[in-house]
């Protein structure tokens, strides 16, 4: 395929594309031998998810490891996208891969590593201390189980009000026939159920 079939987009246009459209664009740029365009799209895609993946990794891995875990997850998800092995939406797949890398980390119980410092390839920083005990709770599984028990409207309320950072007023406004009082009740019940699931998980572990 020649570059004539590839239409380069501006930085601003690329930043408005969905994950899937960015991946398509990278693939097309690559096929058209326009690597610079593809690399910009790749940077936008990785940057878009970087902070969220680092924070997710940080919930269950020591500080020294989070960028390594997040980097491996992003590399794996993008590799899957180009190998045709990813399942469903990129973001959902990426979240799944992060969970796997966190599990891998705890399974291996490997020694922490240090990033190569900016000063050069052949310099090492001090070895970080290893004082973190990983939390093995499957938090995501508990949340998803609690959400699956809810009807569509109540689930929407929880996604806006409990885990979305929205106010009770926001949730009431966005879900039909929902009062702010109902939103508070649904939120309280959801959190009670979540704690039950987490305590049950703790008791069985």
């Amino acid at each position, binding site marked *: 395929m020649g570059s004539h079939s590839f239409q380069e987009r501006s*930085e601003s246009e*690329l*930043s408005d594309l969905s994950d899937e459209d960015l991946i398509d664009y*990278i693939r097309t740029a*690559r096929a058209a031998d326009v*690597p*610079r365009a*593809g*690399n*910009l799209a*790749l*940077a*936008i895609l*990785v*940057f*878009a*998810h*970087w*902070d*969220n993946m*680092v*924070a*997710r990794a*940080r*919930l*269950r891995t020591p*500080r020294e490891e989070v*960028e390594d875990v*997040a*980097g491996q997850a*992003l*590399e794996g998800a*993008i*590799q899957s996208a*180009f*190998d*045709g092995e990813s399942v469903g939406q990129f973001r959902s797949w990426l*979240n799944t891969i992060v969970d796997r890398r966190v599990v891998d980390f705890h399974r291996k119980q*490997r020694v922490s*590593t*240090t*990033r*190569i410092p900016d000063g050069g*390839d*052949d310099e*090492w920083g001090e070895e970080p201390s290893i004082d973190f005990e990983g*939390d093995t709770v499957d*938090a*995501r599984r*508990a*949340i998803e189980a609690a959400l699956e028990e809810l009807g569509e409207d109540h689930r929407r309320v929880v*996604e806006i009000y409990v*885990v*979305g*950072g929205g106010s009770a007023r926001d949730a009431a406004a966005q879900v039909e026939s929902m009062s702010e009082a109902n939103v508070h009740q649904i939120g309280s019940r959801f*959190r009670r159920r*979540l*704690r039950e699931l*987490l305590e049950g998980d*703790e008791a069985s572990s």
Partner: protein
Amino acid sequence: MSDVERLLREFIEAHEAGQSPDPGELLDRAEGTDRRELTALIDAYLVRAPRRRWDAAAFKTSGAAPVVEGLSRSLAGAGGTWPTLLPRLRARARLRRAELVDRLAAALGAEQRRERVGAYYHEMEQGLLPAAGVSARVLDALAAILGESADALREAGAALGGGPGGPYDAAAFARTAKADKLADPGAADAVFLDESLAGDDEPPAPGGEWDEVDRLFRGG
């Protein structure tokens, strides 16, 4: 509002203000079931949280930049994910590149050709060396040094998604990338188009005579 709710709101507000709050610090302020609930709720928020809007300046100083650099080499190169995997394994093994090359040359019985071994290993990390040409003996030796299986290294070397993969296509990519960079030095993506891609370690001339080290790294 419970402590868990308050800490969750604190995290979300900081995150949505464009900061990068450390969830570990918030978790340290809760105990027992509260801590586990907070972990679950922050995780649920992050799974659904908005993507970060592109910011070229912030990207350059973020941890995302080296990831993109390795990925761009992997996507353009002939060595699959070696450009991301090999440096990570080397870091995990706490080996400087020079130390790794010393050990690799010794394992291959090529101490006298250490510089050549080093140049080839550099090409592997840069995605410039076609994986198909790298012999099992090299992969076995590298695997032993890096604490990984030879099969995993071989699998990682497969070109991504039917990528270029041909002999030294990646070097051609690197020259293109450098030309792009020179033409537009202010380009947002220039930060990860490393100068080292641009052919300081050219492969041996195709018509040149191969020695044992060339055969080990290029003969399959």
